[in-house]
């Protein structure tokens, strides 16, 4: 309690913050400092991203080179490679293929792009950019990480059990996921999946509650909502989406657990296995889909919004221009956040749902394209005629905009129920969401790492390696996912082990091989990033206090901020964060901490009035 009171009433009491002697454990392991927790999330996220990437490459090998001898993978995969006794050729186990797809999806969506992304940047930037000493509750924040860690350990260990990890897809639709008779992964593997995800949800809620409470209650003097950087708006709305949607996944999972282990029939009905009827009657698998996608759709925005916020910040800073349409950006994020709760059934057009209900969801789904388009236009207009500084972070942000547009357009096709009958569960969908969600969010995350690395570690990442990383990834990702549109339109279903039995698909064999090779190259480029990241932590060039000439508060802290962030009083805020290249100003940027009374040369008329008020000691700043 006491700390919270002190933070609100008298910040000066925290002056001695940086000088605590802390043991190794309380400083680096069970730390309650938001900056350390952010780094823990980041490094865990990177590890998970590598694991998820390797999994995808294994199943891509199968798709691209279906005749390949995989015996050489036996040392890693053991029994999952079946050796043909006669020929000695090794083949990937068909059920394990599905397990790979499932774990890849789960890991990337939840562990990398939810925990790794929000966990890193919400934790790191919220206190630093709103001017707070730490999160509302450092203890809950620490718990959030350790729940995530435990969940990670369980999910990881599920890959090493003899029946294999969960295999029903990241959406775990019953009855497949409910019945161990259906697929071996639905045995213990699925149980571990559910346990891990329950812990994961707890972690997300602990973190999200903290982010919301901190943004609302702990902003420094002058930091009204209309002066908040767009990053913070994005993290804030993301946390609200999570708070409202993750508990629903928890309910869905709970009912699934009951069906699996306690014999209830929430999702199961009239199932025959080997000619014998199961006792379960009266359940509805569509109910699960409703519950799942009520989380699932907001979840895709939980993944994307933080990246959009990061990008707004980076594009404005490196275009040396105010973000175009600050209020429109906030408005469209609010619109997206709201709409994302009422479009979920567009994932279920062919589930047997009432077609009339489907057509309502078509309408709502297409409306969400409007705020998405507003955001895309605003990025482009911000870039337009800017003095663009092509840092690696900037390149990745521009890459995000490109993926967001390319993938968003295909969303409009999928949003039409009639077209979706053809496209559902094909590679077209895979292409859509890997561009708009996977790659876009991933680029935002990487951009954020390049941009805030100096603040995190006091050193700079290597630029040249950053450029290599960008160009290979950018071209690589388009080479992987663009061809999938054609394959999908041609009718390739997703989650199929092999297409060699269908003559119609053999024309695409070369394309599939090309995709696999591109995926391999793209993956190798990520190793460049990993090397750059860890090398620069120790050996990177020393950072200057404000390397990107940015306006936001985090750059007013010492290069290596201690516990409590600012050694002296917390700075106060006088203006919005986007005063770049203001006509008349001395520099091409004016930090948020500079009062209007110090910048008479660049003030607009109404700002001049504020400056007069500031001089009189009156507070010109309204609380909003």
């Amino acid at each position: 309690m006491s700390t919270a009171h002190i933070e609100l009433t008298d910040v000066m009491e925290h002056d001695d913050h940086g000088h605590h002697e802390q043991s190794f454990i309380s400083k680096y392991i069970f730390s309650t400092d938001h900056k350390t927790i952010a780094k823990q999330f980041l490094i865990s996220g990177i590890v998970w991203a590598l694991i998820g990437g390797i999994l995808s490459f294994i199943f891509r090998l199968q798709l691209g080179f279906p005749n390949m001898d995989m015996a050489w993978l036996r040392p890693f995969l053991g029994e999952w490679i079946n050796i043909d006794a006669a020929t000695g050729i090794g083949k990937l186990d068909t059920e394990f293929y599905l397990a790979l797809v499932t774990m890849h999806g789960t890991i990337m969506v939840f562990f990398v792009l939810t925990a790794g992304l929000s966990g890193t940047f919400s934790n790191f930037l919220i206190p630093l950019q709103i001017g707070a000493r730490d999160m509302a509750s450092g203890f809950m924040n620490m718990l959030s990480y350790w729940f995530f860690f435990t969940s990670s350990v369980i999910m990881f260990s599920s890959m090493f059990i003899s029946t294999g990890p969960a295999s029903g897809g990241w959406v775990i639709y019953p009855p497949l996921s409910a019945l161990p008779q259906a697929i071996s992964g639905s045995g213990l593997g699925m149980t571990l999946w559910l346990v891990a995800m329950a812990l994961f949800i707890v972690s997300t809620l602990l973190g999200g509650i903290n982010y919301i409470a901190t943004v609302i209650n702990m902003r420094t003097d002058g930091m009204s909502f209309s002066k908040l950087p767009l990053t913070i708006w994005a993290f804030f709305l993301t946390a609200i989406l999570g708070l409202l949607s993750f508990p629903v996944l928890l309910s869905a999972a709970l009912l699934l657990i009951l069906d699996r282990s306690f014999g209830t029939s929430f999702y199961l009905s009239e199932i025959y296995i080997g000619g014998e009827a199961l006792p379960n009657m009266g359940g509805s698998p569509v109910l699960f889909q409703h519950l799942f996608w009520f989380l699932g759709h907001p979840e895709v925005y939980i993944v994307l919004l933080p990246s959009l916020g990061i990008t707004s910040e980076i594009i404005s800073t490196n275009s040396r221009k105010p973000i175009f349409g600050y209020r429109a950006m906030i408005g469209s994020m609010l619109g997206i956040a709201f709409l994302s709760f009422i479009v979920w059934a567009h994932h279920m057009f062919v589930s047997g749902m009432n077609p009339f209900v489907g057509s309502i969801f078509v309408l709502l789904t297409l409306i969400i394209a409007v705020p998405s388009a507003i955001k895309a236009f605003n990025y482009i207009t911000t870039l337009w005629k800017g003095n663009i500084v092509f840092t690696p972070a900037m390149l990745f942000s521009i890459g995000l905009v490109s993926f967001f547009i390319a993938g968003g357009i295909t969303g409009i096709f999928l949003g039409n129920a009639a077209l979706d009958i053809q496209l559902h569960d094909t590679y077209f969908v895979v292409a859509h969401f890997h561009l708009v969600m996977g790659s876009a969010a991933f680029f935002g995350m990487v951009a954020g790492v390049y941009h805030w690395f100096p603040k995190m570690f006091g050193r700079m990442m290597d630029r040249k390696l950053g450029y290599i990383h960008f160009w290979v990834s950018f071209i690589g990702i388009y080479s992987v996912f663009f061809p999938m549109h054609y394959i999908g339109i041609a009718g390739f279903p997703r989650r199929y082990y092999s297409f060699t039995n269908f003559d119609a698909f053999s024309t695409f064999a070369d394309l599939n091989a090309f995709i696999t090779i591109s995926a391999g190259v793209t993956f190798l480029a990520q190793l460049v990033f990993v090397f750059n990241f860890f090398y620069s932590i120790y050996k990177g060039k020393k950072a200057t206090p404000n390397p990107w000439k940015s306006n936001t508060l985090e750059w007013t802290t010492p290069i290596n901020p201690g516990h409590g962030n600012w050694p002296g009083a917390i700075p106060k805020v006088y203006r919005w964060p986007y005063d770049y290249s203001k006509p008349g100003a001395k520099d091409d940027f004016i930090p948020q901490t500079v009062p209007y009374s110090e910048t008479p040369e660049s003030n607009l008329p109404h700002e001049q009035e504020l400056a007069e008020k500031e001089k009189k000691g009156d507070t010109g700043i309204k609380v909003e």
Partner: protein
Amino acid sequence: MVSNVQIAGAPKKQLSINPKKFILWLFMVSIVMVFASLTSGFVVRQAEGNWLNYNLPVELLVSTIILVLSSVSVQWAVRAAKNKELNQTRLGLIITLVLGTVFLISQIWVWSILVENQVYFVGNPGGSFLYVLMGVHGFHLISGLIYLLIMLVRAYRVDKASKIQFQLGQSATYWHFLDGLWVYLYVFLLIYH
């Protein structure tokens, strides 16, 4: 950088309430979402037909009344703490804990009556949903009981009521919430059973 700050009139303090209080409210929002999804699942599934209809046992009204009473007693404890009456606070907490436990026991009693009426946990989802709603609520109620128990222990450790007043208020808010949640579920079940 920091020195800039002193020059002009201070920018206004931002409106804020105690973050710890706020955290509790957000936590309750997440619980609301769990029950909102379960009850909407209930309604959606029921609309599909093949649903077990049953009468709610009247005994459920008894447990509802017990829980509402416990809200009164916890509020009494909070009032007492404000008036610096530590002994009354302790008594109020004890009464609340007892009522809360009796509520849980009576919920189990209701379950046994349901079984007698051939409404089972395993079987038609109509019955299963009822058990799940009651069970998940009961689970949260146990967490509320633990919170109150901690407060009771603290109430015996301190010499002045003011020392636990804030936490007591928090635990009472949570308890009222759990009570309100149950009343919602009860009314919901009355309408949709």
